[in-house]
């Protein structure tokens, strides 16, 4: 029995900011203080507030330490764990009420509006210890299905819950399962899409790292529901921590008899294997993913036949995303009514978003469907840094679009996002402020899809490339108004004619920025200006004569010698030589250099 638990975040975010060193430091400091038997150190999954990492929580007090460095550990041990005095300077500032009172983490702005279902155990349990998962109702849902429900009843419960696929398209999960269940075959498969590839998205990774057993349990339930005895998790090799924890989880589940032959003496067999993807974006598309599991080159194929009819190895297959699975066990345990009580009419439950970009609280948040973008950005995300103005939010990654400031009060759900030209996607949410150029953003995502297009179909392979070239032309100030119309027509052509979801959605970033920020495109084309000051080719650097003191700092810094002038006299920039690197602006102490 331990009197205190020290939880250290072991998610990818905190690991990259050094949490592994903090764990080692705690272990050695506790050993030195002879507290090894009294205080337990636990490596957990992501707490969500990645911006404040590395994160340490000490129970029973529930003190939330943020931005902890290895040097701070000795102080936490000596003060908090030996003498019982929390180290105030390291506490997350919002939890400190006054000298003696510390607020519970759940009542801080970041956590208060969140509702954690899929992330229930992330940052709460030790993901490498199956018993901690079992303590919090783990594998109870599987046991309930095997002992109390028929497979048909399980499918009905999922159907009644209204759960829709969290990977992006939002197809009803129960319906998908019923199709696969209805097809008779000697072997069926359950697959998990953990090939999270959108730039800026890390929801699935965090679930895998923080609560891997939730995925295992749900896949076994899916197997029972459709009559499959074998499952595959397709995960990208770029997620080493997630892969490792998944391997540990599978081994533990087998050891505890919760996976393998005759689970809980029910006669149901289920086995799971991991397949590593090399990180191709197209392998997140379901048919390409299954082709890749089969050991072939990851390319999509036309549908129908849908995977529920002919999927992996030509057998009926159910393929769901990680977050979708993370909801299953709780729907079984709490009932479909509990789930439908959350969310909007057509989108039930919650959604996890990876908040990134120009936002104070970068991290992972889970909110009920129907929460407005404003609540996510301002209340949970803590607003935009440096007093800048919100310009747009990008959802759905390279397949999604931008939501402009005037639509910030839109309740987020599948249908609302589609209606305004974006999509839910897997849940990346990138916030942009007035310093972001929307043409440049569209170009960024297009560059990504051009690189990731598998090349099997022409509209996607050549169409996205041509689209990218047009965007490049515009950002160089060489575009014409005619190009804008041509671009729009090409967008619709690619959407209508591409083979798979990658090509069908690739033009979305361009279409949505054209729809809401056409004036910015026009500024690039007609005025040859980039209003946000991002597109290099449209910028000019100049020195304001009155402000320049002639200190020569900029001239010495300029790598190409484009700045000339004598000491104590105003300098000038030779725009023909200038490479627009911005070094002079950073150097000038008198704000005498402007870029426009």
């Amino acid at each position, binding site marked *: *029995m*331990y*009197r*205190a*638990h020290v*939880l250290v975040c072991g998610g990818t975010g905190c690991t990259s900011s050094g949490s592994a060193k903090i764990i080692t430091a705690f272990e050695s400091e506790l050993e030195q203080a002879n507290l090894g038997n*009294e205080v337990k150190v636990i490596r957990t999954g992501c707490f969500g507030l990645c911006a404040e990492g590395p994160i340490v929580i000490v*129970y*029973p*007090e*529930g003190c939330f330490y943020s931005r902890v460095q290895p040097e701070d550990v000795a102080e936490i041990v000596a003060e908090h764990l*030996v*003498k*019982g*005095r929390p180290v105030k300077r390291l506490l997350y500032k919002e939890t400190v009420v006054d000298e003696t009172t510390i607020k*519970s983490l759940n009542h801080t702005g970041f956590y208060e509006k969140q509702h954690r279902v899929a992330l229930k155990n992330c940052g*709460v*349990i030790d993901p490498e210890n199956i*018993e*901690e998962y*079992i*303590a*919090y*109702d*783990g*594998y*109870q849902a599987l*046991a309930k299905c095997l*002992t109390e429900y028929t497979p048909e009843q399980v499918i009905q419960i999922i159907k009644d819950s209204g759960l829709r696929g969290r990977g992006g398209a939002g197809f009803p999960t129960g319906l998908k399962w019923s199709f696969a269940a209805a097809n008779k075959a000697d072997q069926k498969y359950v697959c998990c899409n953990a090939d999270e590839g959108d730039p800026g998205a890390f929801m699935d990774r965090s679930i895998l790292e923080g609560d891997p057993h939730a995925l295992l349990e749900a896949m076994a339930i899916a197997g029972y529901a459709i009559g499959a005895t074998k499952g595959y998790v397709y995960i990208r090799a770029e997620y080493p921590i997630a892969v490792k924890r998944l391997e540990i989880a599978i081994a533990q589940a087998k050891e*505890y*008899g*919760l996976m393998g032959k005759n689970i*809980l*003496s029910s006669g149901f067999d289920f086995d799971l294997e991991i397949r590593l993807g090399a990180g191709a974006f197209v392998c997140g598309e379901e048919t390409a993913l299954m082709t890749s599991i089969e050991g072939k080159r990851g390319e999509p194929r036309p549908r129908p036949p849908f995977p529920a009819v002919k999927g992996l190895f030509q057998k009926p297959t159910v393929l769901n995303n990680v977050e979708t699975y993370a909801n299953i066990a709780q729907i079984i345990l709490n009932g479909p009514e509990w789930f439908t009580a959350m969310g909007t009419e057509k989108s039930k439950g919650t959604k996890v978003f990876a908040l990134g970009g120009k936002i104070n609280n970068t991290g992972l948040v889970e909110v009920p469907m129907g929460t407005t973008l404003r609540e996510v950005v301002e209340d949970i995300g803590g607003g935009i840094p440096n007093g800048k103005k919100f310009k747009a939010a990008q959802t759905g990654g390279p397949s999604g679009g931008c939501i402009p400031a005037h639509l910030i009060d839109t309740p987020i759900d599948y249908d609302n996002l589609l209606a305004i030209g974006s999509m839910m996607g897997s849940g990346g949410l990138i916030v942009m402020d007035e310093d972001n150029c929307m043409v440049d953003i569209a170009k960024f995502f297009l560059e990504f899809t051009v690189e990731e297009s598998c090349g099997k179909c022409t509209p996607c392979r050549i169409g996205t490339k041509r689209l990218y070239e047009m965007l490049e032309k515009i950002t160089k100030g060489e575009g014409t108004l005619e190009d804008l119309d041509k671009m729009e027509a090409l967008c619709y052509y690619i959407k209508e004619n591409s083979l798979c979801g990658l090509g069908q959605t690739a033009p979305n970033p361009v279409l949505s920025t054209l729809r809401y920020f056409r004036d910015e495109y026009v500024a690039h084309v007609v005025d040859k200006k980039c209003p946000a000051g991002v597109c290099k080719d449209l910028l000019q650097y100049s020195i304001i004569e009155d402000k320049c003191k002639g200190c020569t700092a900029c001239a010495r810094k300029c790598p190409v010698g484009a700045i000339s002038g004598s000491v104590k006299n105003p300098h000038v920039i030779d725009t023909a030589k200038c490479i627009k690197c911005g070094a002079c602006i950073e150097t000038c102490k008198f704000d005498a250099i402007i870029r426009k």
Partner: protein
Amino acid sequence: MKTLEELKALKAKALQNMGIRDDQAATTRIVVGMATCGIAAGARPVLTAFTEEVAKRQLQDVAVSQTGCIGICQYEPVVEVFRTGEEKVTYVKMTADKVARIVAEHIVNGNVVTEYTIGACTK
């Protein structure tokens, strides 16, 4: 694991080790003074004894924690018990032997062990 009963038993056992992480659940806090004076007077075995006793009795709503010098060094080891809605009780000159009785009578049954309290000691 072959049966549902085994899974349930394992859950109950595992949950006990995790109760500490619910910072809302504790309605009773046993706080041991662990400054230099307390440690020198033998606070550590007292703290360990409380932790073990609470674990043995599977008390989910009791947290054992430590604090610095309470200010009455001559009475160390000092233990304070906070229960929601009740006045704080201060036990002084504690030893590990006294722990079981305090847990049984005070923590579980709500009867303060008056003879160990500071009131009885200073009389």
